[in-house]
């Protein structure tokens, strides 16, 4: 499976008569994009706005960030979501760099899981999208729509906008190319696998999971082998809310990219095992042993690095999977988070098997930041609620926001440089 990922670096964005790219500037026919997105009858209207670094702008109700990507050859745009369900990960994909699509969801469901992006002030420094020009897609629901139907429409709209914008660039504007090809590297390099615990159904309201894998839910899957190319090429998107794993960070998966970067130099990237957290106790040892076996026997790895979503139960699962690998002679490294701001680091790990001695702590998710009010609000209004665990606060005020809701600040795949430090 060989993927050619072309990139077009964009340094400016403007609304214009015609959509296109010239001299690294993206021109967007706003009306055309709006009409495209408004084809979905679930929307009353779709606003499209630009948010540039330094603007006194707060983008609220953010439920995803998607990098503009389109399939030039050998597949479909966002297969299973926009396009037909065909394999991702091969052929030619074109990306626009530096101009993410930010997707807002104003439906009053799931208030606590919406994120924000500040374009100036301390919030802009904390979240990486504050340093990029964002194309903000802001739909409004049409009439009474159920939670999932609307969330799905919003997800599709983000992908549609991303594909539309990516198609604005012509072949002669491509200025970067990365090739992803997992040929076994020559030499005696250690084989390193990645165990990607991709989902946990513990918060699925009414037991309905998010369709994150080729537009299909995999909330109860036992561990399976997936090609890393597929993951970064649109086969995996974030769930209906960001939860520190926005689609952009999966398309630019920091671990997969880092393992490819070192492939053939310091390591042999052995591949990826994907799994989900167990809710039933009988399932946990089964999933763990399967991860161990797949990593050791199918991927033939000597080392494995692991990430997980959400909170505590997935962390415990990850520990079990890691112990299973260590018991099979595969050395592990885990990326986990801390949850309690009033604690001691040496009592926070949710496992204590001595073999789990290589842990990366990617931050405390409940640490808060104070964000001053900003003059302009996109994706909502001054009265849009912003989550606070003990009181009500709204977007137009000075905010005390948990860093997990500042999009691009924390990331469970390891994209962020945050780490929790003892005070």
């Amino acid at each position: 499976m060989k993927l050619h990922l072309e990139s077009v670096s964009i340094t400016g964005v403007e609304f214009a008569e015609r959509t296109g790219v010239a001299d690294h500037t993206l021109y967007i026919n706003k009306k055309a994009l709006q009409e495209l997105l408004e084809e979905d009858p679930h929307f009353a209207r779709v606003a499209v706005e630009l948010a540039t670094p330094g603007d006194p702008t707060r983008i609220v109700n953010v439920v995803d960030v998607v990098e503009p990507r389109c399939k030039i050859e050998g597949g479909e745009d966002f297969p299973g979501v926009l396009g037909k369900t065909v394999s991702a990960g091969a052929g030619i994909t074109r990306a626009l760099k530096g101009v993410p699509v930010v997707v807002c969801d104003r439906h009053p469901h799931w208030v606590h899981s919406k994120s924000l992006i500040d374009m100036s002030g301390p919030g802009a420094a904390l979240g990486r999208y504050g340093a990029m020009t964002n194309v903000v897609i802001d739909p409004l629901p049409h009439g009474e729509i159920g939670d999932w139907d609307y969330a799905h429409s919003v997800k599709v709209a983000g992908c549609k906008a991303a594909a539309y914008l990516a198609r604005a660039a012509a072949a002669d504007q491509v200025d970067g190319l990365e090739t992803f090809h997992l040929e076994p590297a020559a030499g005696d390099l250690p084989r390193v696998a990645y165990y990607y615990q991709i989902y946990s159904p513990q918060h699925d309201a009414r037991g309905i999971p998010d369709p994150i894998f080729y537009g299909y839910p995999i909330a109860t899957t036992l561990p399976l082998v997936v090609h890393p190319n597929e993951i970064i090429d649109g086969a995996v998107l974030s769930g209906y809310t960001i939860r520190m794993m926005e689609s952009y960070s999966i398309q630019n998966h920091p671990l997969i990219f880092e393992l490819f970067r070192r492939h053939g130099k310091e390591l042999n990237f052995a591949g990826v095992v994907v799994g989900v957290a167990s809710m039933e106790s009988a399932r946990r040892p089964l999933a763990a042993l399967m991860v161990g076996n797949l990593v050791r026997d199918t991927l033939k790895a000597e080392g494995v690095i692991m990430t997980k979503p959400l909170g505590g139960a997935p962390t415990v699962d990850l520990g079990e999977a890691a112990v299973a690998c260590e018991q099979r002679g595969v050395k592990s490294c885990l990326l986990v988070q801390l949850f309690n701001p009033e604690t001691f680091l040496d009592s926070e790990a949710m496992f204590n098997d001595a073999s789990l001695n290589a842990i990366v702590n990617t931050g405390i998710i409940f640490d808060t930041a104070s964000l001053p009010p900003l003059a302009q609000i996109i994706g909502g209004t001054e009265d849009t609620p912003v989550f606070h665990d003990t009181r009500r606060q709204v977007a137009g005020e000075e905010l005390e926001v948990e860093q997990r809701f500042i999009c691009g600040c924390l990331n469970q795949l390891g994209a962020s440089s945050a780490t929790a430090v003892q005070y």
Partner: protein
Amino acid sequence: MQISAVVDVAKMVGVSRLIRGYSITSPVCDPHLDPEKEKAMRRKYLDKALAMLQEEGREGEFQTIE
């Protein structure tokens, strides 16, 4: 004694009478069973619990209802 689906944490801290619960969201029975069977399963858990209370505790181990 404790009934918990997440036995790993309980084992780690040294719980000495531990039954592995059914699931995180329903520790003492399978909520998808018919009500009578569900209650019968709860009874199995509690029978086991009383039995373990009458045995010596063993840190870092757990039992199941099978």
